[in-house]
């Protein structure tokens, strides 16, 4: 029966709710379809939670304000779509380099350029990984339902605060705008991670980029007495710029090794019917719903199809997919782009079996019937 904790809401609304549950205290953003409901929700709710909402003059300013807010000690986020995500890339790189926790939501719409503002796409998957220049760590998550949007928004904050790596939450227009049931968990059931601080560290002795066992240095907010320096230049443990090749190498390798060291904590995958699967599907976001529908229909027809659904897109679930490289006879990767993750599946499965693509870039979702047809063709 209806309880106050069960509501019908959209993915965008669930994202705002998840952010609040995770303790977000700063949102800086710029209006863009189909993400604006996230900003609208938080503009209403953040002042009531003692948090800050600010609409900036563009997306470059939005991510800049988010990084500043995080440096000042707040859990901070922005939300945008393709064109705005493109504008944010330089400062996302800054957050990677200076290790500033932040969450960037990209509700994907059709691209490139202005593209299809009101229609779904998954065309920014590679951009989420390599949108900013230079070797850098990044985490990207892709929820497939309203409930999972709530959960993964919390997880995005937990990961960024734990590892000081920016987290991109990749929704697509379908997930952002679909309305479905969400039963809110008890607040006590929600695991919320806070960044490791070093408030007790004596000001001048605080080494902001100290090499620690976890690879993640503790972070003291500005205004807490540490008086240190943050820069996007290559820097040493003190945070000041350096041209020493040894120190630069150490920094770049440490930044990127954070992903390797914590990979298994970060990568999350859901398997459906994979135990005996001969046709393996890999799908994420709203497309995974089409794929799961197709797998269920195939199973009803006695076809051994299964689905691997990466909830974490970056780092990629290569080992998880690779484990089935010899079991399946063929892979199918449906995507609302021209094959961005399909290439990753080829690498992950070491090209041992053909990877069949089902792609749509016309603003329409992939119909499960088309996937089912492909499955039947392959049997």
């Amino acid at each position, binding site marked *: 029966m209806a309880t106050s904790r069960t509501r019908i809401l959209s993915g965008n609304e669930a994202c705002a709710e998840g952010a609040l549950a995770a303790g977000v205290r700063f949102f800086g953003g710029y209006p863009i379809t189909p993400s604006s409901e996230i900003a609208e929700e938080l503009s209403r709710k953040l002042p009531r939670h003692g948090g800050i909402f600010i609409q900036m003059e563009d997306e470059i300013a939005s991510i800049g*304000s988010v990084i500043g807010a995080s440096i000042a000690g707040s859990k901070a986020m922005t939300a945008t779509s393709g064109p705005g995500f493109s504008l944010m890339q330089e400062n996302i790189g800054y957050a990677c380099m200076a290790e500033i926790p932040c969450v960037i939501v990209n509700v994907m719409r059709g691209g490139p350029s202005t593209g299809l503002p009101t229609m779904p796409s998954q065309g920014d998957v590679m951009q989420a990984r390599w949108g900013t220049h230079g070797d850098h760590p990044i985490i990207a998550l892709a929820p497939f339902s309203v409930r999972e949007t709530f959960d993964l928004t919390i997880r995005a904050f937990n990961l960024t605060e734990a590892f000081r790596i920016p987290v991109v939450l990749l929704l697509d227009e379908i997930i952002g705008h679909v309305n479905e049931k969400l039963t809110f968990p008890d607040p006590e059931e929600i695991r919320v991670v806070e960044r490791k601080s070093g408030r007790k560290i004596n000001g001048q002795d605080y080494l902001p980029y100290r090499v620690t066992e976890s690879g993640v240095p503790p972070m003291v907010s500005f205004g*807490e007495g540490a008086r240190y320096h943050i820069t996007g230049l290559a820097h040493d443990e003190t945070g000041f710029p350096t041209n020493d090749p040894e120190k630069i190498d150490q920094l770049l390798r440490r930044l990127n090794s954070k992903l390797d060291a914590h990979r298994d904590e970060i990568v999350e995958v859901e398997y459906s019917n994979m135990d005996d699967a001969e046709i393996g599907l890999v799908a994420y976001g709203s497309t995974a719903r089409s794929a799961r529908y197709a797998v269920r229909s195939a199973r009803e027809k006695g076809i051994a199809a299964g689905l691997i659904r990466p909830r974490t897109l970056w780092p990629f679930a290569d080992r998880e997919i690779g484990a089935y490289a010899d079991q399946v006879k063929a892979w199918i990767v449906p995507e609302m782009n021209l094959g961005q993750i399909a290439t990753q599946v080829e690498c992950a499965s070491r090209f041992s079996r053909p990877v069949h693509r089902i792609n749509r870039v016309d603003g329409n979702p992939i119909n499960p019937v088309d996937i089912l047809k492909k499955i039947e063709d392959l049997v």
Partner: protein
Amino acid sequence: MFDYEQYLRKSKMPLIWCAGCGDGIVMKAMLRAIHKLQIAKDDICMVSGIGCSSRLPGYLDFNTLHTTHGRAITFATGIKMVKPELHVIVITGDGDATAIGGNHFIHAARRNIDLTVILFNNHIYGMTGGQVSPTTPFTKHASTAPYGNIENPFDISGLAAAAGASFVARATAYNAIQLEKLIQKAIEKKGFSVVEAMTPCPTTYGRRNREGTGVDMLLYQKDNSVPVAKANKMDAEELQGKIVTGVLVDREKAECRQEYQNLLDHFSKEGEVDS
């Protein structure tokens, strides 16, 4: 003798600035102003973009943030919104603040957020070798204006004033005493405050335009400065090539972080969290 060392990170010296550069004069004027105001070092957050002047915060013992090109004001906005108790000072240059960062500059002024911007105007992109900037005067030479600048320059103070800043002032590196006083006023002012500090770049601007040494360029500032009261009585032709100095704008208007605080106070009094 003023003790500058209490504010310096001496281990980060020597400075990257060239001999004859005016940036050090502006930095010292700013330190004296901060000292007069008795602001604790922990309570100052200095945010810069990219360029010669933007290297300044690294030499000073505050909370210092060296951001991306043109974006210092956006990072500073996030910090100020979260920690309004900090004095947030933005160090930027003419290219950083009014070319790549021009949109942020005018919007921070419109928003009237309580930041102090010290804008080092040397008419050139110095760090990258002397390319033409939005304030390079008409006909002057730069590495990317080898036949003379065919574009009109910005009047930065005029831009800040028109965009809505609470406080706008201009001074020269030559008149370091005035500079110090104006920076002090700018920090004290609640609202968006801009001090346009005219500073010579003998290396990449002066040499190319045959304006002599750093000292020659400072003397040029001396000879061509006009106090704002006097300038008000002069016509446009008389003001050609002059540097109008002093307080150009000082007005009271709603400040965005305070307005947000009123909202927060309203809801915390209401004690209502969810809706």
